[in-house]
C-alpha cells in the first residue's frame, strides 16, 4: 500500500499526474494546490543545487532565465541519489539542445567548465611528487613508465575562450571578451583548498589526457605530436605538482 501511494505521490511531483494521489490526501486547500507546495519545494531545492554549481552560467543568462532553464532541465533529469554533488552533470548537454539559448553557442561550454571545476574542487587530496623524485628519471625510461596525475587534475578544452569568460564573471572584472579570440585548453588543479587554472597548449592537453588515461610517457608523447617539447612540458607540470606517482 505505502509503495503504491509513494509511486502515485512521485508521479504528482515529476509528471504532474495527480489523479491517483489526490483522493488519498486532505488539507485546507484543494489537492492540486497541496501537491503543488511539495512540487515547488522539490524544484526550488534542485534549482538551488544547480545555481551553486553553475554561478557563471546563471550570471550570463540572468537569474530569472536560469530558473526557467533549470525547471525545464529538472523535469527530465531527476537526481538518481540524495548526494547533490552528483546532480547536474548533464546540464551542459541540456543547454546544448535548448533552443532558447541557441544564440549563446558558448554557454554549454561555460556550464561544462563549471562542472569540471566542481569535480576538481571536491576531489580527494593527494601529495604531489617533489621535483627530486624525478631526478633519476632517464629518457629511456619513458618507454615503460607511467605518471599518475593528481586526483584534482582535470582537463578542459573548448573552441571558445571559456576560461576568460569564466574568470571575468567570477571576479566581476567587466573585461570585454571577444569570442573570436580563439579556444582554450585548461588544466585545473587543486594543490590545497583553491582550484588553480593553468592555460595549456593543445599538444600539452593531449599529452596530459593520454597520461590520465593510463598511457606510458612515450605513448602520450607520440599522441601529442612530433614537435612536442616533452622535457619542458614535464618540468612545468612537475613544478605545478600535477604528478603523484611514477609507476
Amino acid at each position, binding site marked *: 500500500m505505502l509503495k503504491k501511494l509513494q509511486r502515485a505521490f512521485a508521479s504528482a511531483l515529476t509528471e504532474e499526474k495527480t489523479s491517483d494521489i489526490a483522493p488519498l*490526501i486532505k488539507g485546507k486547500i484543494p489537492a492540486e*494546490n*497541496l501537491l503543488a507546495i*511539495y512540487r515547488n519545494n522539490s524544484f526550488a531545492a534542485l534549482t538551488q543545487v544547480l545555481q551553486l554549481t553553475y554561478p557563471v552560467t546563471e550570471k550570463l543568462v540572468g537569474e530569472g532565465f536560469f530558473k526557467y532553464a533549470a525547471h525545464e532541465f529538472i523535469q527530465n533529469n531527476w537526481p538518481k*541519489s540524495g548526494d547533490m554533488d552528483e546532480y547536474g552533470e548533464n546540464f551542459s548537454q541540456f543547454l546544448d539542445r535548448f533552443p532558447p539559448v541557441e544564440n549563446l553557442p558558448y554557454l554549454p561550454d561555460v556550464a561544462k567548465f563549471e562542472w569540471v571545476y566542481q569535480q576538481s574542487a571536491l576531489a580527494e*587530496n593527494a601529495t604531489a611528487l617533489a621535483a627530486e623524485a624525478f631526478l633519476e628519471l632517464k629518457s629511456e625510461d619513458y618507454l615503460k613508465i607511467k605518471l599518475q596525475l593528481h586526483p584534482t587534475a582535470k582537463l578542459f578544452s573548448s573552441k571558445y575562450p571559456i576560461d576568460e569568460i569564466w574568470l571575468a564573471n567570477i571576479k566581476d572584472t567587466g573585461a570585454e571578451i571577444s569570442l573570436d579570440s580563439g579556444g582554450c585548453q585548461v588544466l585545473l588543479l587543486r594543490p590545497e583548498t583553491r582550484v588553480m587554472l593553468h592555460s595549456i597548449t593543445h599538444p600539452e592537453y593531449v599529452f596530459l589526457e593520454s597520461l590520465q588515461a593510463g598511457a606510458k610517457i612515450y605513448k602520450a608523447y607520440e599522441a601529442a605530436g612530433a614537435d612536442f617539447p616533452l622535457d619542458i612540458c614535464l618540468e612545468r607540470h612537475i613544478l605545478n605538482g600535477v604528478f603523484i606517482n611514477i609507476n
Partner: protein
Amino acid sequence: MLPGIALKHRHFKEIKERRPSLGFLEVHTENFFAPAGYAHECLLGLREHYPVSAHSVGLSLGSADGVDQNHLEKIKKFIEIFQPFLVSDHLSWSRMGEKFLADLLPLPLTEETLEIVCANVEKTQEFLGRKILIENPSTYLEFPESDIPEPEFLAEIAKITGCGVLLDVNNIFVSATNHGFSGQEYLEKISCAAVGEIHLAGFTRTEIAGQEILIDDHGSAVHPSVWALYREAVKKIGAKPTLVEWDTDVPELDVLLAEAEKAAEIMEMQYA
C-alpha cells in the same frame, strides 16, 4: 549544553576567527559527502573547537523501497571523519525507484508505515553502529488513512528501535497551524525520554486558494509563538541540545548568535 547553530558556508571563516560561544555546530551531512575540498577542510578545523551534529535530509527513512545503501555508506564515512555527537534524519520519504525527489515528503501514519520506518531505522542504526534521532517534519497535507497521531508514532519508533526523537518545535507549530490541531496538545503526547535534540527555525506565511498556509522555509527569525512553544517544551522535557536553523536568506552570523542566545536564556530560566 549551550544552543548550537546550523553551520552555513558564508559563516565558515567568521566562526573560525571569532570562535563564538556555542554548544555545537550542525551541518547537513549531504553537504560534506565529498572526500575533500574547502567545506571539508573548514569543518575539520571547526570540529577541533565545537561538537558537530550530523543532520541528514536524504536517507528517506519512510521509503517503502528501503534505505539507499550507497547513501548510508556516505553517512558512515562522514561519521568516521567528523565524529558527530548526534546523527539525525526525518520522519519522511524522498526517494521513489530511481528518482530522488529532493524534499521531505509526508507519510500516512499507519501500522504499515510504522513497520517500514522501524525496519529502515533498524537497518540504519545497525549499519552506522549507533543510535539516530528522527525529526518530526513540517507537513502541508494529511492522509485520511492515518490512524496514529504523529507524537505517538514517533514514540513507537523510539520504543521499537531504540532511536531518539529530534523535536522540531517550529515544525509542530507549522503543522498544527496548517492542519488545525493544538501544538500544546502535541507536546503533551511526546515521549520526553526519547527527545535527544530540539530544533528551532523560522517559517513563512503564504496564501493559497484563499487560505493561509505556513511554509517551513528556515528563512527568518524564530516566531514568538514558536518561542512560546519552546518554553513549554523545555519546561516539560528539560533542557536538550537546541539548534537554531537558518537555511535560506542566511543573515549575518550575529543574527544567528542572538537567536541562539535567546534559546540559552529560556533553557537557563528552567533552572533559575
